[in-house]
């Protein structure tokens, strides 16, 4: 892209041109992401509405299609209230700290063989590091608000995220054992062939554990005790209003889409076609698979009752982590004996 642009702007220094091109690439990823986040909230309300035999938002625009924009304008023009005894700087920084890692993680996501913003070797590790940073936003928000409910929510969330991160990390170790690389593009290409080469078959337990851990990491139902409307009002962001609240919201939904896309990339072959004879590999397959997991997020919220807090901890430490450790040993045996088409 730099080579094609350079002849048109010969007066521009090369570093500046590089910066501009990079910024354009960032925008190309982030602006569609924001639009998807906006319509994901709309889809959430509509789908859960239909699941509960309601109509959902239907006033703004045809079938309520402009509802996300109405919500956005409302949040933008609302006053940001900072509680009197709150720690002002940290109170403002917290939503940014929750939001920035959720955006940063998208840097290494490959959309197909060539379409990737930053093709780094340690992509998987980078994703793991970025998703583990999101918890700071939650903790700092809870503490800086100087409110009991917010602190309780932050504590719950921190313990939960730390617990499920371990299970998530172990599930990813299984993926990198099977893929033989930390680069996300290489991992997808290692699943090439047909549907039977995808990693969800040999790594089925890890696939399930990863998605459950992802659900818990994003604080979504049935693990949404950090927000727990009926117990601690809204948890860590109870004191936030207007744009500061919206930024938390954006980060959470961007994380949900990220987890969905990672599950599709790591276990379901990303952009690889399930029926190579019918239709070739395409970015559309990636979006279709991601969309399926995004739907699962909403479906779970409409279906499952909230877990009790001690049972969340039990599930994380005593069920998911042992399952992943056992399966890593099993996978080691698979690798040693070159089982199936996956470890040949």
């Amino acid at each position: 892209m730099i080579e094609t642009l350079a002849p048109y702007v010969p007066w521009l220094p090369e570093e500046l041109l590089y910066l501009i091109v990079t910024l354009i690439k960032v925008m190309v990823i982030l602006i569609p992401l924001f639009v998807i986040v906006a319509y994901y909230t709309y889809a959430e309300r509509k789908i859960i509405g239909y699941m509960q035999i309601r109509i959902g938002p239907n006033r703004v625009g045809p079938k309520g299609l402009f509802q996300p924009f109405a919500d956005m304008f409302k949040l933008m023009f609302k006053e940001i209230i900072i509680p009197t005894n709150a720690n002002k700087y940290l109170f403002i920084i917290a939503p940014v700290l929750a939001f920035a890692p959720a955006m940063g993680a998208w840097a290494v996501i490959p959309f197909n063989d060539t379409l990737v913003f930053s093709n780094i070797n340690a992509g998987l590790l980078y994703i793991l590091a970025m998703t583990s940073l999101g918890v700071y936003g939650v903790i700092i928000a809870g503490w800086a608000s100087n409110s009991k409910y917010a602190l309780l929510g932050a504590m719950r969330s921190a313990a939960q995220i730390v617990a499920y991160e371990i299970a998530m990390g172990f599930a990813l170790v299984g993926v990198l054992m099977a893929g033989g690389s930390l680069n996300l593009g290489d991992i997808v290409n290692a699943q090439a062939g047909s549907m039977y080469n995808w990693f969800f078959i040999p790594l089925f337990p890890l696939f399930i554990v990863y998605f459950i851990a992802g659900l818990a990491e994003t604080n979504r139902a049935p693990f949404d005790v950090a927000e727990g409307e009926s117990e601690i009002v809204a948890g860590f962001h109870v004191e936030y209003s207007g744009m500061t609240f919206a930024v938390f919201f954006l980060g959470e939904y961007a994380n949900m889409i990220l987890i969905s896309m990672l599950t599709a990339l790591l276990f379901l072959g990303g952009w690889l076609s399930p029926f190579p004879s019918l239709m070739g590999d395409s970015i559309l397959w990636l979006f279709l698979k991601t969309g399926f997991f995004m739907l699962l997020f909403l479906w779970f919220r409409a279906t499952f009752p909230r877990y009790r807090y001690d049972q969340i901890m039990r599930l994380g430490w005593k069920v998911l982590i042992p399952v992943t450790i056992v399966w890593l040993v099993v996978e080691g045996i698979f690798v040693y004996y070159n089982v199936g088409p996956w470890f040949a």
Partner: protein
Amino acid sequence: MLESLIFYFFASLTVISAATVVTVRNPVHSALFLVLTFFSTAFIWMLLEAEFLAISLVLVYVGAVMVLFLFVVMMLDINIARIREGFIKFLPVGIALALVMFGLIYYVVSGDQFSLESMPAPVAKSAEYSNTKELGMVLYTEYVFAFEIAAVILLVAIIAAISLTLRRRPGTRYQNPSVQMKVQKQDRLRIIKMEAEK
């Protein structure tokens, strides 16, 4: 040029935030500045093309260790006046320790081991070069025993920590989820026929 600019930015950020960790009054702020120190150190390592180390520093120290640190610091009600009581008393010991530390660091850094002759700037590797693979190779071949010993020490620490907290108080009631899951309808529910009340 740009690289050295980035280096000086993050190097000064590291030094300033590290100094702030010990000077700031609020323990939560001090923990957060420690996070910033780790983070900017990771950037410096990234400039050295040690991508695996840089990312795992963020992953392990920032993403896990410091979260637990903050967790504890927030729960404790730390009285700063009490902590400052012995300041004068311990000052000579502190200064002596600081001098010893400084001397050691000065000895190592100014010596031959770290001079530009004995340790030239790293040559930029090609895009194919995988830092992770190289580290893994060395770790599991040359240093495998040291690695295993470190793992065993960590395991001992985990078991020790668990056994310290594993106290079963008499009289507390526990739920057994597997028993709860196995409950059948007829174990708990009895449907009886009753005459209608008049």
